[in-house]
């Protein structure tokens, strides 16, 4: 009858995961402890909490914290406003272009933030494509939209980045909700509006809140968007403040104390997130049976609205990206000449022509970035596989371990970068090895997120069958579990690759000027107003990110089909 299945102990190969745990632990804890110790030990070697205390009570840091929370809240609200209608449409209707909306909405998941920044500058800037288009259309002499380098730009960019998260998480949850409750409400006499408010919305709420917490966490930790699009010290968040204190004012102690403060907040958010997620999983028992069939769109206005949303969604997401690609193929022939098609930036990038300024190191940055990302991806495969063996089982220890595995998500990449910066300044070495280690710590939790759910999906029957057929545990792991996880491991590794390739926050915080990666060069190019050069690098990032995304979708499709 299968009721006693939980009694069966298929022993896990716990020892397999020990090296990976030790690795993760050391890579994560050493820099973190160093950061923490910097907060309480002053440069002269004295131990005191005074610095911590003064930071926690200083009006300036409290103001920064307040602003960080405020912009994260507004960004989350904006993401919900844009994302929820999409979630409704995706979960309830079939329409032409649905696949496009779905595909487009997954794009920002894999985009590095520096690319978003660049896209925004190119698309929404005063001299950007949108403004020029509007100027031509309405025959204006001045750009009508002033979005960039302001609070608006920050919120808009965060919404761009995060509305797909809301849309995807909520619509997936919505789609899989058992529809019998709604049908029951309607047979009991509730109209469709009442059914939504009394039944559907309360059931959706935990999933909305959990998606919101995640988005809030991302916005809280946002770095490149604030640095560039905020355009000045009046918009400083905790992350930016940590970076400035460490790398501009060279005050490690202050940077460390702010890190601790920021860490406390993100830990709280993460606890809230795990709690909400558990609540939403517990409340609904997913059934595959009673899933409602999707309606086709009826009536002109609904068709029109859905069409409008799809177009807006595509424009909102694809506009900035397309303009990056278009811009990369343009150059002005003379100092003030009009832009025309040119491969100038690619020639500079691939070293065919000597690049000027930062473009000179673009090729080596590309090579370095590819090498780092490849290394990170390769290491992430065995690490996430063995870590997953420990995490797959539900129980006290595995949930404790899972939280530990998620900790690097709570600790922002700037804080990790700061830790590695402190290490490299101690041992007077700042090689690329530090970058690889920092990227590993950032990428592994994401790789794990792709592997662990798949691991948990493997029916215990497979392992029991293999066991009764004569396989021992190691054999089962090698011949049954690992092959079944092949695709999710590959997906995880590709995400690690993409993540490492686009990583800016930690890299910028830990590196000195002789370390160049693709995003760092892009950041410098944007800083020196060489947008076309940045666009050429950005196009390469887009191509790689989109390839990774398509490959992972393909693997997912193969798994389901």
């Amino acid at each position, binding site marked *: *009858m*299968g*009721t*006693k299945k939980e*009694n*069966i*102990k*298929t022993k896990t190969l716990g020892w397999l995961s020990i090296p990976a745990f030790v690795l993760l632990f050391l890579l994560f804890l050493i820099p973190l402890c160093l950061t923490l110790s910097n907060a309480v030990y002053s440069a002269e070697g004295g131990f005191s909490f005074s610095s911590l205390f003064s930071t926690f009570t200083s009006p300036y840091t409290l103001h920064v914290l307040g602003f960080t929370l405020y912009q994260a809240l507004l960004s989350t609200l904006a993401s919900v406003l844009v994302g929820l209608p999409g979630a409704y449409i995706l979960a309830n209707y079939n329409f032409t272009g649905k696949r496009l909306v779905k595909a487009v909405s997954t794009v920002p998941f894999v985009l590095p933030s520096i690319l978003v920044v660049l896209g925004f500058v190119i698309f929404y800037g005063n001299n950007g494509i949108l403004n020029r288009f509007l100027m031509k259309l309405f025959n204006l002499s001045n750009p009508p939209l002033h979005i960039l380098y302001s609070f608006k730009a920050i919120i808009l960019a965060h919404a761009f980045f995060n509305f797909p998260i809301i849309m995807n998480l909520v619509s997936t949850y919505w789609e899989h909700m058992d529809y019998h409750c709604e049908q029951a409400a309607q047979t009991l006499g509730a109209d469709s509006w009442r059914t939504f408010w009394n039944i559907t919305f309360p059931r959706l709420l935990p999933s909305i809140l959990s998606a919101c917490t995640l988005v809030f966490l991302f916005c809280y930790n946002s770095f490149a968007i604030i640095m560039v699009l905020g355009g000045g010290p009046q918009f400083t968040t905790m992350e930016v403040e940590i970076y400035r204190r460490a790398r501009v004012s060279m005050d490690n102690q202050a940077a460390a104390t702010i890190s601790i403060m920021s860490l406390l907040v993100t830990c709280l958010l993460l606890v809230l997130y795990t709690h909400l997620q558990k609540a939403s999983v517990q409340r609904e028992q997913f059934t595959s049976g009673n899933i409602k069939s999707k309606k086709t769109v009826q009536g002109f206005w609904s068709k029109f609205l859905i069409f409008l949303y799809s177009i807006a969604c595509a424009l909102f997401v694809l506009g900035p990206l397309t303009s990056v690609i278009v811009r990369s193929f343009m150059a002005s022939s003379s100092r003030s000449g009009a832009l025309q098609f040119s491969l100038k930036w690619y020639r500079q990038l691939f070293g065919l022509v000597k690049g000027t300024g930062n473009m000179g190191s673009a090729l080596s940055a590309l090579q370095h970035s590819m090498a780092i990302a490849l290394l990170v991806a390769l290491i992430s495969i065995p690490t996430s596989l063995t870590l997953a063996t420990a995490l797959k089982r539900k129980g006290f220890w595995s949930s404790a371990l899972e939280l530990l595995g998620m900790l690097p998500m709570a600790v922002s990449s700037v804080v990790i970068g700061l830790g590695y910066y402190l290490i490299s300044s101690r041992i007077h070495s700042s090689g690329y090895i530090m970058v690889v280690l920092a990227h590993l710590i950032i990428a592994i939790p994401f790789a794990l997120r792709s592997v662990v759910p798949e691991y948990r999906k493997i*029916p215990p*029957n*497979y392992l*029991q*069958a*293999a*066991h*009764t*057929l*004569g*396989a*021992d545990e190691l*054999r089962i792991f090698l*011949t*049954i579990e690992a*092959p*079944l996880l*092949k695709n999710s491991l590959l997906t995880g590794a590709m995400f690690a690759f993409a993540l490492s390739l686009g990583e800016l926050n930690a890299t910028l915080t830990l590196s000195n000027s002789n370390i160049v990666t693709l995003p760092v060069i892009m950041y410098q190019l944007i800083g020196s107003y060489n947008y076309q050069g940045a666009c050429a690098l950005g196009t390469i990032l887009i191509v790689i990110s989109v390839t990774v995304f398509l490959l992972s979708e393909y693997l997912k499709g193969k798994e389901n089909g």
Partner: protein
Amino acid sequence: MDEKGLTCSIKASYPAFKLDVNFSVKKGSLSCIIGPSGCGKTTTLQLISGLIQPDEGFISLNGTDITQTAVNQRQIALVFQDYALFPQMNVQQNITYPMKLRKVPRSQMVERATMLLDLVSLPGYQKRRSSQLSGGERQRVALARALASEPELMLLDEPLSALDSQLRKHLRDEIRSLHDKTGVTMLYVTHDQGEAMAIADSIIVMNEGKIEQIGSPEEIYNQPQSLFVATFMGESNILPYDVIEQVLVSEGNDYVIFSPKDGEQTIFFRPELVTIQDDMSLPFPDYLPHLEFRNSSLLSCTFQGSFYYIVYRWQNYEIHATAQKRPKGPEATLGVRLTNILQFLDGKRIG
């Protein structure tokens, strides 16, 4: 202990119930464990396979004590209700998996896989994926895979319950013939008494973690040792013992001794043993000592295909019967031979 076959005597307790079973299965036989859901039959299989450990007791297989043997060393194959075919492997890879573990040479593996596929009537299925197979085909592959491990004992955990009834009948006969061809000892769990009676050499009836009765299908059906077994294995009529006084028809009175006892005493008989006299102009067809329930009124009559299932009311009791023809009138006299009646006292068989 030196008896060939499976002998087990195991105790295990769980939050919901206690399991305490004691039985043996002859080498080369096909035995069924049957019982209502939650009676512990699946748990018993898992204990024997070694996937879970008993609190106390022993399990011996062909003279060897295997209580402490690891699952993968036991030579006991388990066939699952949901097949558990490895999805990343094709049919042949699934079947050769246990042979690979036993380091069988490659050429021999392929040959044996082909032979096993022929045996389960799936010739040429080597390269198929499990996702391309129907439920019945999957279960055949699972059977072939289990046989490929050359088990000393094969456990089958409700192997047919996910299939539709037509296919279930067909496949249960195939499992029986598979057993006869290979001679492997099989222990088969089911909750379907028809399935158990059709294929088993012996049946083990379980209830609430305990064994109620072990015996051949005929013994279990005709000579149940408890009311539970009697009612679980088929349709039944249960009446209080004292009705005998009113309905007994016996020519030589010395033939029957009416002997009521303390406790809940009942009589039991199967519906197919009830004779219906619905034409009062004819004499009652039975002259041996019997019980006669006069003036029974017809409650319902349902057509079952090869017979009619009829329910009468006699006084305050319902009496179930079967017949080849639809009853002619609303009233009838029902008769049962005394030799067809079983007696139970507090649920246990007496007399």
